[in-house]
């Protein structure tokens, strides 16, 4: 008893001695130095997921696959590596190009190996962390499961996941990069880690610094025309292209066709009510992501606005918003169309497409 009490006393005295001013000084200095650095972002913060203040909570379970610098860099490397395709000719960024917000700048329908033409237009990949479902028909319920659709699609990469993994396991640098990014992974690269790396990269592709965002956050002004466009947009378009992501993430038929070459959502739910319905796309960076619609029907925003004003086709599943009071479409004057387009261009995020991390 006596002994232990003595030891405790000794420890307290020791601590007291240590934290005299003389010993504290270097610590204080160190703290100052680090505190000073915080003005520029810490290197680690640049590579972790940060939710923009004016955005909703992410849908992706980031606690299950948190973004790390190593995982992000690995995902970026894979995204740009044609090793994912059968003949080493097609990478993810063939069809998802950074300069156009990760959409396809050239092809109405995407082009895969052997110049095979796909069935739909490649959408931009931004703000994926906030999306509930993926693809024009929402057939993919989780971002992790998006890549196999491209890799194993005969019209896109025409490869097998198992063969991609085999190639990566033989590769000069991938095994070490995977082990660094995922310390809990065993010796062999397996598909969940490949998918995790790609999701880490894609989760970081957050577009939240457009002119409109700066306006929302109070550090930029919109022009009178843009403000007019915003008001018209909120009145005529925001029922579907709603919120800060400019999509309610529902599946609607916006009247492109009366008969459906592509069943869209109907293929997934197998419900007659969903035939010819497609995911309401986000309109962020829409100025860059032409052509428009799942089937690349329109080349310009002017054509899109003309469609809503006078091109909407009737069908059993046509959205109610597009057939109010017995008239098809959304009434829009030429000036109103122009103002809405002025507004849509404020959604272009130059900081995003110039971000050197991506």
């Amino acid at each position: 008893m006596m002994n232990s009490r003595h030891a405790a006393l000794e420890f307290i005295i020791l601590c007291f001695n240590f934290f005299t001013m003389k010993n504290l000084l270097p610590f204080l200095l160190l703290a100052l130095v680090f505190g000073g650095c915080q003005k520029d972002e810490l290197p680690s913060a640049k590579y972790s997921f940060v939710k923009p203040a004016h955005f909703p909570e992410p849908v992706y379970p980031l606690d299950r696959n948190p973004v790390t610098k190593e995982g992000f860099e690995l995902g970026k490397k894979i995204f740009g590596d044609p090793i994912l395709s059968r003949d080493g000719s097609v990478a993810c960024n063939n069809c998802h190009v950074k300069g156009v917000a990760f959409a396809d700048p050239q092809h109405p329908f995407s082009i895969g190996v052997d110049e095979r033409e796909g069935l739909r237009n490649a959408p931009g990949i931004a703000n994926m962390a906030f999306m509930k479902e993926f693809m024009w028909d929402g057939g993919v319920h989780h971002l992790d499961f998006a890549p196999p659709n491209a890799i194993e699609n005969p019209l896109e990469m025409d490869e097998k996941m198992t063969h991609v993994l085999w190639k990566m396991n033989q590769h000069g640098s991938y095994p070490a990069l995977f082990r660094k990014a995922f310390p809990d992974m065993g010796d062999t690269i397996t598909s969940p880690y490949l998918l995790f790396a790609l999701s880490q990269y894609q989760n970081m592709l957050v577009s939240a610094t457009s002119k409109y965002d700066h306006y929302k956050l109070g550090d930029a002004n919109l022009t009178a025309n843009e403000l007019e466009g915003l008001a018209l947009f909120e009145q005529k378009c925001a029922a579907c292209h709603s919120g800060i992501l400019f999509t309610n993430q529902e599946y609607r038929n916006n009247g492109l066709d009366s008969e459906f070459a592509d069943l869209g959502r109907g293929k997934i739910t197998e419900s007659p009510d969903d035939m010819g319905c497609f995911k309401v796309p986000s309109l962020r960076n829409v100025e860059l992501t032409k052509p428009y619609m799942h089937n690349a029907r329109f080349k310009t925003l002017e054509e899109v606005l003309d469609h809503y004003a006078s091109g909407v086709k009737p069908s059993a599943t046509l959205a109610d918003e597009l057939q109010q009071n017995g008239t098809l479409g959304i009434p829009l004057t030429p000036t109103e169309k122009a103002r809405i387009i002025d507004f849509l261009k404020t959604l272009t995020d130059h900081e995003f497409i110039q971000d050197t991390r991506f």
Partner: protein
Amino acid sequence: MKKFLLLTALFGALFLSACKDEEEAKDPGTFAITFDNMALINNVQQQLSLTTAGNTDYPYTNEMGQQFNITLLRYYISAIELDGPNGEHFHDHMEATAAGAKGYYLVDESKPASQEILLTDVPAGTYNKITFTVGVDSSGIVDGAAGGNLDPATCNMFWNWNSGYIAVKFEGQSPVSNGGVGGTETIAGTDPNGMAYHVGGWKNIPGGVFVYNNKRLSYTFDTNAKVESKLEPELHMVFDVQKLFGGHHAIDFTGNHNVHKPADGVDVANNLEHAFAYDHIHQ
């Protein structure tokens, strides 16, 4: 001296309580389950034998009298629970992470080891009922990619286009089928007699439009299985392939024999209850 007495008393109490515990609650044990894939031939139940595409021997007959053979049979069993007459209860541990999957078993006719499931840490007691899910429910898929039996690259049970796991995958041939199947592992589209039944659909949303084809099934045993540390009870379940095509709804091989989406798999899924059956227990 006082201290010494106190210590002895304490240790004594500890020792006694340890002994008492051992007497009352027995240590948990294991519980083995074997899935025997069977079919009747001349009214005798026999183990299945798989064949390869192009073979024109058709050893099996469905409820409609149509002959067939089998080139692939694979299904998921998950979320196993055991119950006993005295309130015994065991729920298999479930986990789906990148490092692996626990509680999701992929029974494959071509891999005998996959037909034997060993449950561990089952509380001691008697059990007379098993419940399991055929397929992979949302807990195994909503959160994203996982490894082990759920690895989408290697399980060969994953739908990319409508992300989720196929619950039951059957491929084979029948002389009455007119072939032309796609998206298969063992049968070519050119096979004039090919058949594919890929039964999936996991989104179980009340009032929703999705077709849910996973099945939660329960079977009771005619004898109690006794579990404790030194015992090794083994349950034999039977999966009767002919009842996969009958029982609830007779499947006509001249009809849709190229099943690749939830709505087309409903009839086969409804037959699962009859295809599985309790057979016997080795104690």
